[in-house]
């Protein structure tokens, strides 16, 4: 019974589609555009979120950064309050290590854009980072060849460097072996002791690919450590079982004591967490998602009206046929299901075309954008479900009207 119903409805729907190609195409266009708009926005937002979360996780979600500027965005950012604050300095590192008991590791980092050279190969504006030894315990990274610098190398300011993938490829083209070779970092000779694993592009710009890491005590020879341009900060990783809030409380006390701040004085440092970045991006994604939802949602509704229109025409064209079917014993639900299935079929077809367009777009994007954009299974299922539901909403009124027709009057209709 159900099979017959599905078979007949499919045949009717296909006949109607083939007989009125242009009309069908124009009706489907609304649903196609609606599904395309909504699922494209969801796909892009999902991909951006995934990428940003990956970048944030590489910074560490149980890490608190002691910095000059707080991480927040928006028009009400009171920059004038922060501009006269001092930047964190290396000598504060030891104090923080000593005073903060909830910290598993405390590291210091500075960085600046410098020129790197090896024989005739030059990389301009490579990011040279100066790390204290313990910063390697705070930051997440992988070394594919060679090693991280030893504690004595870090303390002694040895001229050793670990290169990111992009820098290594620039300085040592044609898969030349880099470990043990000497390169020039900001005009100073430096021995390559390790290579970072390739990470790819990062939304936050914190990929290791274009970084050259040297011990802090070596970096301070050619970087202005007290300058804001060197972006100095102290990174504190919490012990297992210590929350970021607890760590921040302890750090606030320690930093206020280190900087000898009076009880009523404001903090002259910012304690930043990676979840602050996530929250800022969440609100941005909410705005993008909301715009997509409103545009796509109403496009789909308009597309639904198109389907409803074609179904009213379809019922009108086949009124005579409905009368014959009913007079031969067809039940109301049979007629209802026939037209409803046709509407769902049309809408689903529009949705599938919309999803195929998005899939083609993601394939195009793969070759041209560094970020990975994928059409997820959940978005495909969502797109198809919406199509079916819009088909039901737009097709129910004409289908129900058809099922309620009087067979005698229906047969008489020309």
């Amino acid at each position, binding site marked *: 019974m159900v099979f017959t119903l599905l078979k007949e409805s499919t045949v009717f729907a296909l006949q109607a589609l083939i007989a009125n190609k242009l009309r069908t195409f124009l009706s489907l266009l609304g649903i196609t555009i609606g599904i395309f708009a*909504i699922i494209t926005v*969801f796909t892009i*937002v999902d991909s951006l979120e995934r990428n940003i979360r990956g970048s944030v996780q590489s910074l560490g979600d149980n890490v608190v950064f002691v910095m000059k500027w707080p991480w927040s965005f928006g028009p009400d950012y009171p920059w004038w309050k922060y501009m006269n604050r001092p930047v964190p300095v290396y000598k504060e590192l030891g104090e923080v290590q000593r005073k903060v008991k909830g910290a598993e590791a405390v590291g210091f980092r500075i960085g600046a854009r410098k020129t790197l050279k090896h024989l005739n190969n030059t990389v301009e504006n490579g990011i040279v980072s100066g790390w204290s030894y313990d910063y390697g315990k705070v930051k997440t990274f992988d070394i594919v060849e060679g090693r991280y610098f030893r504690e004595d190398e870090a303390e002694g300011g040895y001229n050793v460097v670990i290169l990111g993938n992009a820098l290594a490829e620039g300085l040592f083209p044609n898969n030349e072996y880099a470990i043990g070779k000497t390169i020039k970092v900001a005009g100073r000779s430096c021995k390559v002791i390790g290579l970072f694993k390739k990470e790819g592009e990062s939304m936050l710009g914190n990929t290791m690919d274009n970084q050259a890491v040297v011990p802090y005590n070596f970096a301070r020879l050619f970087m202005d450590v007290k300058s804001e341009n060197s972006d100095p900060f102290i990174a504190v990783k919490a012990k297992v079982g210590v929350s970021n809030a607890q760590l921040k409380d302890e750090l606030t006390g320690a930093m206020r004591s280190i900087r000898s701040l009076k009880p009523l004085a404001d903090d002259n440092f910012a304690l930043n967490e990676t979840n602050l970045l996530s929250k800022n991006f969440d609100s941005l*994604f*909410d705005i993008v*998602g*909301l715009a*997509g*939802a*409103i545009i*796509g*949602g*109403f496009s*789909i*509704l308009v597309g639904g009206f198109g389907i409803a229109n074609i179904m009213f025409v379809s019922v009108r064209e086949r009124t005579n046929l409905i009368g014959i079917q009913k007079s031969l014993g067809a039940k*109301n*639900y049979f007629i*209802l299901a026939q037209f409803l299935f046709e509407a769902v079929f049309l809408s689903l077809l529009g949705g599938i075309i919309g999803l195929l367009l998005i899939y083609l777009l993601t394939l195009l994007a793969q070759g041209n954008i560094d970020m990975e954009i994928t059409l997820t299974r*959940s978005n495909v*299922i*969502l797109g198809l*479900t*919406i199509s079916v*539901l819009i088909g*039901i*909403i737009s097709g*129910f*009124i004409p289908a*129900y*009207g058809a*099922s*309620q*027709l*009087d067979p005698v009057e229906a047969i008489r209709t020309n």
Partner: protein
Amino acid sequence: MAQVIRPRIISILSVTAIILTLLAFPMLFMPSIKRMGDFVPMVLGIIITLQFVAVIGVWHMKRWGVSLFVMMFTIRVITFMFLEMYSFRFYFNIFYSVVFIFVFLYYYKKMDTNL
């Protein structure tokens, strides 16, 4: 099609319910709804669609329309409570749905039992 005798209040409430249902549809794609889970927009979409079908039934003075409307109202309240969606919209939904149900039930005996 057979002529339906429909009280004016049912006509007004049905048209209002259809408009509210259609306006609720784009809300399914709100980022806040999607963040609750991948399947939440689909579940809410099915509820909205069936509620729309129920209102069409009520418009045609069919008893199945009222039954489906009450069923969908119950499922929607349970779903919203399960998802902890206690917003102004939730209470507003409950308010107008209860009013609709009272009016629909008042005319229930005058409605048709067939499909």
